[in-house]
């Protein structure tokens, strides 16, 4: 019998269609059809400037947009040879790890809910809300953040970030404890996941698996350890491994990884370099109109009251969070408003065929995304637009193994197997 699962099946996360060839309930053959979420990401990027295409990277893995931002931005920084201040690096690590927790929480929430554990779903969503509060406070958005910018980050952390982060950590710990209590020895859950869809290390490597799915088979590979970037080499964390490579191990590795990510977040809070600017929100200052008026007769050095949209990107705050190499970052708004040089450098940044123009050549750089190695391959021909941009999506390789894994299993096994792989439509279909 032929059975279509999807494209609009509640367990198919994004939109994917699995065509199953069945004998009774046994799967003889499976074929995946995807592309329902194809938006032409790579084609679009070829027609956008390096600065403009940043928001598109939010929409790849939409559960952990900050890691995508980070991956893209760091690829470009490798090309441009920019050094990022240490505080910005710590902020990036903090944000990446929070996103990783979010991603794992969501992946497990969806996987377990589809197995019938609706409580776990609600608990995980609760923990995610607390983490998103931290992100919202600083980045201004919950999902499509575009927060990590070329040369640093968009704005400094919110003055009360430590309290909210501590709350988020405590709440997530509680949830993780509850969820472990609910699932780790749960007969129904174990029956559906233990020894189902077993993947051997050889097969995982042959399919190019990375991330939690590869580590569940017992292969220790993590980009954060193998090719350390940012300040990961200064932080203490472990790489949790699985033993059997089945669905349960993929669940377990994610649970343990969240613990490790929480550890990293705590270390970030402790060792975050102090901000160079005053800690209160910088709303006070003279009105922009007055500053412009004043700048007509003399150069003004007064602090300007920027609009709330520009909060955090004041000149004073740029020091700790943005690189000082000129031409690669948006000039501070105070300069743009009050001096002719500032205005020119603002125009130069945004004008067509100006702005960020990396040298000719090609570069590959990868970060550890939530579901594996997230790589960007960019070819520059010296203009302000990438000649070609290719994304190495981690879940592309993981999902490509699904057809082979499903063979010989039962229809009911499709759901936890597909869930444990954490297929993200935005990243898979690009």
């Amino acid at each position, binding site marked *: 019998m032929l059975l279509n699962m999807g494209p609009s099946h509640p367990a198919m996360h994004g939109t994917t269609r699995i065509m199953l060839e069945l004998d009774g309930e046994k799967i003889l053959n499976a074929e995946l059809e995807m592309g329902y979420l194809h938006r032409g990401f790579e084609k679009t990027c070829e027609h956008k400037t390096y600065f403009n295409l940043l928001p598109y990277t939010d929409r790849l893995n939409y559960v952990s947009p900050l890691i995508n931002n980070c991956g893209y931005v760091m690829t470009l920084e490798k090309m441009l040879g920019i050094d990022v201040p240490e505080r910005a690096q710590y902020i990036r690590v903090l944000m990446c790890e929070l996103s990783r927790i979010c991603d794992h929480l969501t992946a497990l929430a969806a996987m377990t809910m589809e197995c019938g554990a609706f409580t776990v779903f609600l608990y995980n969503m609760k923990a995610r809300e607390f983490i998103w509060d931290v992100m919202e406070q600083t980045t201004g958005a919950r999902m499509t953040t575009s927060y990590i910018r070329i040369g640093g980050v968009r704005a400094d952390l919110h003055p009360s970030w430590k309290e909210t982060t501590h709350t988020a950590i405590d709440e997530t710990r509680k949830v993780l404890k509850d969820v472990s209590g609910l699932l780790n020895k749960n007969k129904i859950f174990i029956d559906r996941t233990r020894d189902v869809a077993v993947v051997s290390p050889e097969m995982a490597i042959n399919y*190019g698996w990375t991330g939690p799915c590869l580590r569940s088979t017992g292969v220790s590979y993590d980009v954060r350890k193998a090719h350390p970037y940012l300040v990961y080499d200064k932080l203490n964390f472990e790489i949790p491994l699985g033993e059997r490579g089945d669905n349960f191990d993929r669940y377990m590795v994610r649970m343990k990884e969240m613990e490790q990510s929480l550890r990293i977040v705590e270390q970030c809070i402790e060792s975050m370099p102090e901000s160079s600017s005053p800690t209160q929100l910088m709303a006070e200052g003279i009105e922009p109109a007055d500053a412009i008026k004043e700048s007509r007769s003399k150069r003004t050095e007064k602090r300007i009251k920027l609009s709330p949209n520009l909060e955090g990107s004041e000149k004073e705050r740029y020091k700790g969070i943005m690189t000082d190499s000129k031409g690669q970052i948006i000039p501070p708004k105070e300069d743009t408003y009050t001096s002719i040089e500032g205005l020119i450098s603002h125009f130069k940044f945004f004008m067509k065929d100006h702005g960020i123009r990396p040298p000719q050549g090609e570069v590959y750089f990868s970060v550890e995304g939530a579901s594996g190695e997230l*790589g960007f391959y960019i070819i520059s021909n010296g203009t302000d637009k990438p000649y070609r941009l290719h994304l190495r999506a981690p879940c592309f390789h993981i999902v490509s193994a699904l057809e082979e894994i499903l063979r010989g299993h039962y229809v009911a096994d499709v759901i936890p197997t597909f869930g444990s792989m954490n297929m993200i439509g935005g990243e898979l279909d690009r």
Partner: protein
Amino acid sequence: MAIQQEKVVQDLKERFVEKIKEVSAHFGDDTVVIERDSLLDIIKFLKAEPYDFAMLLDLTCVDYMGQPDRFEMVYHLFSLSKNLRLRIKTRLPGKDPSVESLTPVWKNANWLEREAYDMFGVRFNGHPYLKRLFMYDGFEGHPLRKNYPLRRRQPIIRMRKQDDI
């Protein structure tokens, strides 16, 4: 017994003297440009011990429209045990964009090559199931080619012509 990145490139140069066209290191990424017909040999050589490039990290294609060899295949290899990365590139002529398939060596090459076929129209000899991956079957053209317009729209079902009615 760590193998250095330079040694891999050096060994490759010695072993396949005539097949290596160019060796470079853009931004610290080692790149080897090879002849199209020697792709499988070189890949198998690299996959075996002692280099052990067991993982195909990425496979993609680049369209250099207007150049004599229009398409360029780019392979990113990764050696888990030695922690090395290597980029292999080969050029394909625009008139006959075909290359050996890597599906016998790596399983994820299956989908990656399907994607490259879908987006660029590169054909892979020996591929078991060369079918479009993201686009639907009736789609005309290959969207990532440089001569495919950004805003070109295609109906999912072919528009009915006047004569058909």
